[in-house]
């Protein structure tokens, strides 16, 4: 299984995302923002960082990168895509996920290990978890406050599209403690904290992040097989 990791100018966590995918057992293909070719990958990770310097709004310019046009089309056709942090912002700007991410309510950058509760395991990226499972992965963002209008939020709740919530403290003021959301189909996931930084005991607070990468491998292995 090939997982593509995109590098935009200003991406920071592409190396860690590639490493995490490799540790989970995937063949990793590095994708470049200016190259629209996905080089035969089965899934894509949009990593954290500050694509295009976060100019205008986080993710606003990356959305128009040549690689994103191909990824958007593939995502609409069901290819699994996970956006982490800046990648989540890009997915919202590209309208692949509802809502938007705004400046942390308290204006401070937050960098710490964060407990999350997995609310929905019915996605390509979280099927490895059980609903209600609590995991610990790092969070590090300045603009991670998830917002959407009330109607959208109610729809997300009703459809089970809220995939993870912050517990034991909300690091950025995110509405309804939302840490991760998915599209209706469940192939596109946006998550503000960083699973790719929690895949090895030496450097991470846990190995919980690996679950996202093993989930997509499991999903890809089962594609076409009726549930």
């Amino acid at each position, binding site marked *: 299984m090939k997982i593509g990791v995109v590098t935009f100018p200003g991406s920071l966590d592409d190396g860690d995302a590639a490493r995490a995918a490799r540790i989970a057992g995937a063949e990793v293909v590095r994708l470049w923002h200016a190259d629209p070719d996905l080089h035969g990958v089965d899934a894509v990770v949009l990593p954290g960082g500050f694509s295009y310097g976060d100019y*205008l*709004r986080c993710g*606003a310019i990356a959305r128009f990168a040549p690689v994103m046009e191909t990824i958007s089309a593939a995502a609409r056709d069901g290819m699994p895509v996970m956006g982490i942090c800046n990648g989540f912002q890009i997915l919202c700007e590209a309208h692949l996920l509802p809502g*938007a991410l705004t400046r942390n*309510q308290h204006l401070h950058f937050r960098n710490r290990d964060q407990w999350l509760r997995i609310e929905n395991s019915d996605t390509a990226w979280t099927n490895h978890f059980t609903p209600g499972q609590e995991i610990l992965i790092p969070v590090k963002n300045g603009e991670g406050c998830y*917002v*959407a209008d009330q109607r959208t939020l109610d729809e997300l709740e009703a459809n089970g599209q809220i995939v993870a919530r912050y517990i034991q403290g909300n690091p950025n*003021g995110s509405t309804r403690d939302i840490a991760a959301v998915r599209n209706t189909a469940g192939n596109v996931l946006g998550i503000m904290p960083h699973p790719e930084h929690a895949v090895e005991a030496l450097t991470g607070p846990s190995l919980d992040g690996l679950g996202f990468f093993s989930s997509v491998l499991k999903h890809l292995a089962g594609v076409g097989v009726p549930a």
Partner: protein
Amino acid sequence: MARVVVDVMLKPEILDPQGQAVANALPRLGVNDVASVRIGRRVEIDFAGEVDLERAREIADKLLANPVIEDYEIRVVEAV
């Protein structure tokens, strides 16, 4: 030069922590009668030829503002 100005503001229902931080600093200037401060962005677009309002609206809608959280206003001004 033909100039279009686009003002982008957070929608009223979206919290503006930056504006709040500025409002909270005002008492230090001795200003105590300000109820609220909201911060937006002004974008100036200079067309090489005639003003193309349709095109400007497209730029504002697709790139300059995120309609999920922001409103925008467009006007043509005399460029100096």
